[in-house]
């Protein structure tokens, strides 16, 4: 217990101090926070519940568009803003910017969760690979359709409100970093709290054998929908912040980017270890370091590397880092191992 408090405290202090220790990497650190949030939320869905989805990108993109639209639409006509050059004619005052962003984030979190609840009954009735392909279709369809809607910028994209002119130069980076860090802490604590309840056991029962879970009297559909809504809530939040951070939303390249973000979240969770609390965090951190290295030094070859990485991880490393550690040091994960038994196994090999 004491060890945990020290560990969490150290991470918290590091998280708060990070933008001041590495001032040049503020944007990277914010993106890292967003990636960890996405990996954790994917894990609720794919790791604990066993419903492997490619569709959480839907909520991420939705949150992005919603947050930006609300932030603009609260003060200015949205249609004129996106028509081209709107961000130059209309200028948010600092108060308007922060108010809009706060309301936008709230909307970006709640609306995707509601949508997940509404479509959940239909979509979550599918299982296994049908669910995976269906959600893949949902994500791509959302990207293609939002690319055709005029009011949110259609093909030419949507410029989010620029950060208002306050005195300090570094304010923008710090603001977005702390936004994403606070949301990350909130997400982590919320998911940790969820994992200590009966709800997690129900999700695991659904993953292990849904028919039996149903036979035991669990209303699986209800729990599946709630699980998906939780995923959607945090994905929307992450998307809203990411929209502000990137400053520009494009339907298929930024928001509903199934080829990048949509795969990243799956990959990060699998790399770290599905179905563990810390796995996605470790996976996302490692993945981000790898990705940034590749994106910087081998520009152009990054997708080749990504493709190879996916294949290698999926084929040779499907349990992830936490799964590997768990196999190696089972005692540390609270599993009781008979010493004689283990020795016997070693000699057998």
């Amino acid at each position: 217990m004491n060890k945990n408090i020290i560990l969490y405290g150290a991470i918290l202090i590091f998280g708060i101090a990070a933008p001041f220790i590495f001032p040049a990497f503020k944007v990277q650190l914010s993106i890292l926070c967003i990636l960890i949030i996405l990996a954790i939320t994917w894990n609720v869905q794919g790791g604990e519940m066993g419903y492997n989805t490619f569709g959480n990108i839907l909520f991420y993109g939705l949150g992005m568009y919603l947050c930006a639209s609300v932030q603009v639409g609260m003060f200015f006509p949205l249609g004129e803003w996106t028509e081209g050059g709107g961000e130059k004619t209309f200028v948010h005052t600092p108060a308007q910017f922060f108010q809009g962003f706060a309301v936008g984030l709230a909307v970006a979190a709640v609306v995707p969760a509601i949508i997940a609840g509404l479509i959940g009954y239909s979509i979550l009735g599918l299982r296994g690979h049908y669910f995976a392909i269906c959600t893949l279709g949902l994500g791509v369809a959302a990207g293609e359709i939002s690319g055709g809607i005029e009011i949110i910028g259609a093909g030419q994209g949507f410029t989010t409100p620029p950060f208002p002119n306050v005195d300090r130069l570094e304010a923008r980076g710090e603001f977005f970093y702390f936004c994403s860090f606070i949301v990350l802490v909130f997400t982590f604590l919320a998911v940790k709290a969820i994992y200590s309840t009966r709800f997690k056991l129900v999700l695991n029962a659904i993953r292990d054998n849904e028919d039996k879970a149903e036979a035991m009297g669990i209303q699986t559909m209800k729990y599946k929908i709630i699980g998906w809504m939780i995923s959607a809530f945090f994905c929307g939040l992450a998307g809203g912040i990411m929209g502000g951070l990137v400053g520009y939303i494009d339907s298929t390249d930024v928001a509903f980017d199934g080829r990048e973000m949509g795969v990243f979240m799956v990959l990060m969770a699998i790399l770290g270890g599905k179905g563990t609390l810390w796995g996605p965090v470790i996976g996302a951190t490692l993945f981000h370091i790898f990705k940034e290295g590749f994106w910087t030094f081998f520009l152009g070859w990054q997708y080749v590397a990504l493709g190879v990485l996916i294949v290698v991880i999926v084929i040779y490393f499907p349990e992830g880092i936490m799964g590997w550690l768990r196999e190696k040091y089972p005692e540390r994960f609270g599993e009781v191992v008979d010493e004689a038994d283990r020795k016997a196994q070693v000699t057998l090999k």
Partner: protein
Amino acid sequence: MLTLQAVLDGLLLGVLFALIAYGMALQWGVMNIINIAQGDLVILGGYIAYFMYLYGIHPAWGVIVSPIIMYFVGVIIYKLVINKVVDRDLFISILATFGISILFMQLMNFAFGADVVLANSGYGTTMLFDNSVTLPNSKIFSAFISIVFAIGLVIYMKKSKLGRAIRATAQNARAAKILGVDTEKVYAATFGINAALCGVAGALISITFTIHPYMGLPYTIRSFMIVIVAGLGNLPGVAMSGMGLGVFEEFADYILGTEFRIGSVFLLLVLILVYRRFKLSRKREYLK
């Protein structure tokens, strides 16, 4: 008359979709693998024909050359990746082939550039019904070739030794193994044949429509959709639903506009899956 035009366009397009879907149904049925890279194999096949066109050979020859090259590409992919995911969870195969798909996209982008290209066959057009319906001859040619290949493959599967081995493996891999079928070889051949079919379809698409490195995923989704509507191993069903999908797409194009075309395909996939789910849930079953 716009309606008739759309129907005819859709039918000719749908035959091509059915050919790709047939390949997918084959390897899904035999190996229990969902290949997300299917569409990228199609595009790669298209680029082979396009390349021949660039070097002055008539692109229609791509219909012969492209499947031969693609067969070996398919076998290599099988040996490197697919044979390690055959017996595993389907999601693993989806993700692994997703990786292959991303890899192919980018490699094709390097090799051929990010431009939308087409191989001009110079076949001219046919006017029907008092010039109210315009059909490019290349579309008729491609539909004809697809039908020829599909029928040829059906006969091959029925009559040849390999075809019999493939069908036996699809029915029960373990029993086939006991009776002396080299299932590993059968799997490699199946994936190769699937890739070859994609090669034919790709060559035809490069003649009839356009190709682009990133256009693969919609073809995968279309063939997946056709297979789940028709069911595995139901060839007339594959042909019918392929043509139905083609007509649907042409109408979506005319009514909603071209920018919603791909979106409507993906949305249709979701709707079909949800419809089947509700239909099955009445009997307390689910899609397997």
